[in-house]
């Protein structure tokens, strides 16, 4: 048989061969490159590479990407999954946790991993000299933590008192090597720190000894490296993302989100309400240097609820956050699937109802000014941190809303240290508008906010004994939930805490911001979620295609 090929067919044939060759070359290149390099920005210099000393967002991001943990909270399902531990068990008294560890795992430098490393990590974590912020969550009571290495793959850890939500806390504990000469730079996570230029870049490279594989048995992570540029300026970050110099922006504000959505809607992701809330509170500290009549207003739950009712929170969400926020129902966001009390609904805006409630308390409206029963005009200041555009805007909207019921608000923006000094030391303020960043799903992460003896009980911190009956009840319920290992009992107690907070409004919860992010189309496998780190929580499974 003879092949008869015409010129046009010959040409088509050559084209097909050429295209196939190009495809093969590209495929070969892609294979050689692996999953490529992911690039994004850290908004500040990482303060430490020691995973147990992490106390800032930049260091936490590096810890997440490099640290190997015994158990990991799946950021998508919010459920706990095995990590270096294949299984674990908590004792009935909630004081002891036993782990069965994965065998055959090695650190990035080849040092074998065993239960001794876990024991060493716990010892370091609880060492008071190290001042580990991660360790603070485990300090449940006086006494030492005892670790018992049962075998190279079995360990039990006993705490002096019960630690509620104990297993979830291990999501933050990156295991250190006891024997590696590289100390904390020997890691068990998907990436390792390969290079660091202060003020410029942190380069992470694939950990060749990472233990995890995908469903098809391929070694993870797919990415070859991650380049983290240190860039505090969000405008620059956005410009670089638009130019294609960055692959993702982990947390976007609503203005940038909308601007990007206008031109490239396929790049932006709104994962819905996050755990973060914005709130306003009045100074209820007895020794605060503010007039007595103002203290009387601020101590009145009726006054606080009226203020909440007079603030149009739908407008805050719509105007300030361009619709990427929801009016808050209470202290926990609906994004917290298990712990949010679904019986709570946001109080609807009604200036008339607010005014009526105030009038029932003896306030009266005279020539556009609200006055209390002693004739004092209702005037107070709301302080917030300068430079935070969203908070400044919220304060101005609140000022306008309250003006409608005759309340005059002076908006003051202060640099953050001054604001903190007034808030924590001098108590020289009337009301403050700030946000609460929630990284922990468990209410135990907020023990330092709700206990009346706590320093972060902002409206009236460090009380020797609860000054009000409802604060005493919150203290009791928080201790009940913290000392129980029964999930339902804990939930019941914390549901009641949320209800009391909504009844008393010590914090006027304004909005829950949405988790906004941007991911380039060259990044594959990204599924932004509400929990931190929103966009790179599954970094080990991401790939970046060549530009």
């Amino acid at each position, binding site marked *: 048989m003879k092949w008869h090929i015409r010129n046009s067919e010959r040409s088509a044939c050559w084209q097909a061969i050429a295209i196939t060759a190009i495809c093969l070359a590209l495929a070969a290149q892609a294979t050689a490159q692996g999953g490529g390099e992911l690039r994004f920005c850290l908004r500040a210099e990482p303060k430490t590479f020691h995973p147990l000393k992490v106390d800032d967002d930049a260091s936490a991001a590096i810890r997440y990407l490099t640290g190997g943990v015994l158990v990991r909270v799946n950021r998508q399902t919010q459920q706990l999954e095995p990590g270096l531990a294949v299984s674990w068990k908590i004792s009935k008294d909630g004081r002891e946790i036993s782990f069965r560890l994965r065998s055959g795992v090695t650190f990035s430098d080849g040092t074998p991993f065993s239960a001794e490393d876990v024991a060493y990590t716990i010892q370091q974590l609880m060492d008071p000299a190290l001042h580990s912020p991660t360790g603070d969550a485990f300090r449940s009571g006086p006494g030492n933590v005892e670790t018992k290495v049962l075998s190279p793959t079995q360990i039990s850890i006993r705490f002096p008192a019960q630690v509620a939500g104990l297993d979830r806390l291990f999501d933050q504990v990156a295991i250190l090597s006891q024997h590696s000469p590289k100390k904390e730079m020997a890691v068990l996570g998907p990436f390792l720190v390969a290079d660091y230029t202060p003020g410029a870049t942190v380069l992470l490279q694939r950990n060749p000894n990472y233990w995890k594989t995908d469903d098809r048995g391929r070694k993870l992570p797919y990415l070859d490296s991650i380049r983290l540029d240190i860039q505090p300026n969000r405008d620059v970050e956005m410009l670089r993302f638009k130019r294609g110099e960055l692959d993702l922006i982990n947390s976007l504000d609503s203005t940038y989100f909308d601007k990007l959505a206008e031109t490239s809607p396929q790049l932006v992701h709104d994962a819905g309400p996050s755990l973060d809330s914005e709130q306003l509170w009045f100074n209820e500290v007895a020794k605060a240097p503010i007039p007595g009549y103002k203290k009387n207003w601020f101590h009145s739950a009726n006054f606080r609820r009226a203020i909440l009712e007079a603030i149009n929170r739908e407008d805050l969400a719509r105007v300030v956050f361009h619709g990427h926020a929801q009016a808050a129902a209470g202290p926990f966001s609906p994004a917290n699937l298990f712990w949010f009390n679904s019986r709570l609904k946001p109080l609807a805006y009604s200036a008339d109802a607010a005014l009526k409630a105030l009038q029932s308390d003896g306030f009266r409206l005279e020539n556009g000014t609200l006055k209390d029963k002693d004739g004092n005009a209702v005037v107070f200041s709301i302080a917030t941190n300068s430079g935070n555009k969203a908070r400044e805007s919220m*304060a*101005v909207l609140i000022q*306008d809303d309250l003006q409608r019921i005759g309340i005059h608000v002076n908006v003051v923006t202060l640099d953050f240290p001054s604001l903190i000094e007034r808030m924590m030391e001098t108590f020289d303020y009337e009301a403050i508008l700030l946000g609460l960043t929630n990284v922990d799903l468990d209410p135990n992460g907020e023990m330092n906010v709700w206990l009346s003896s706590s320093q972060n009980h902002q409206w009236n911190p460090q009380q020797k004994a609860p000054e009000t009956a409802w604060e005493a009840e919150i203290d009791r319920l928080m201790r009940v939930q913290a000392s129980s290992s029964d999930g339902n009992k804990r939930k019941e107690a914390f549901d009641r805490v949320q209800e009391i907070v909504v009844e008393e409004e010590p914090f006027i919860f304004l909005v829950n911001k949405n988790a906004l992010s941007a991911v380039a189309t060259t990044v594959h496998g990204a599924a932004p979620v509400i929990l931190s780190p929103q966009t790179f929580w599954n970094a080990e499974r991401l790939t970046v295609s060549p530009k």
Partner: protein
Amino acid sequence: MSLWQKLPYVVLALVLAASLAANWLAPAGYARQYREATDAPPSHAHWLGTDELGRDRFSRVLYGTRISLLLAPAAALLSTLLAALIGGLAGYLGGMWARMAMAVTDLFLSLPWLFLLITARALMPLNVSPLVSVMVTFLLLGFLGWTTAARVLCASAGTLRTADFVRQARAAGLPGLRLFWVHVVPNLKPVLYAQFWISIPVFILSEANLGILGLGVAEPMPSWGSLLKELEGLVSVGEEPWKFVPLILLVVVVTSFQSLLSRQEEVAA
């Protein structure tokens, strides 16, 4: 005077008149929020669009111009007078007095003002009405902004001290202070004018920066400084050109002031 020479007068008169007539010209109050029309482009209802809280930008520009145009020159006048008094006298007296005054000026220049302003803010009560905040802001600027001008005036007065006409007046028995007032101050006028005009835009911009410390013009009151803050984060000029109106106005006003200054110098020469 040619039309070109009259132009700065006309521009300044128009801007000042418009700002003083803001109550009648502005379509809305500076604090009125049209929450259904936030960040809107120019329209019949809002000639310069609205800001991110839905406030009419044209109205805010008019009211902001009034505040900045009245108070920045007032602060500039205060600082120039202080500079004339300290720098001018030091230069005229010379010797130890000049060295002492300049040492104090250098000390002032080297002080970490950011921290001092934070301290000043800490000492002030939080519950201050927007109007009081405006007064406090510009008074602070006036009291703190004299140092650079004082150095220039000291140098100029130092030159005048050894000038022939001053020596002649001194030889004629004219008392020191009278000599300073009658012969030195009038000859310092061009420098004083220059320092005065230069200070105005500096104070307008300083006011905007003071907002970071909680010392600027408080919301909801507008000022050029707070209006210029809108330009933060603007990615391209062509995107929303109407947001540049406060900046253009600032440039036009400052340029007009400078033109007047040049004209006066020409007349003086």
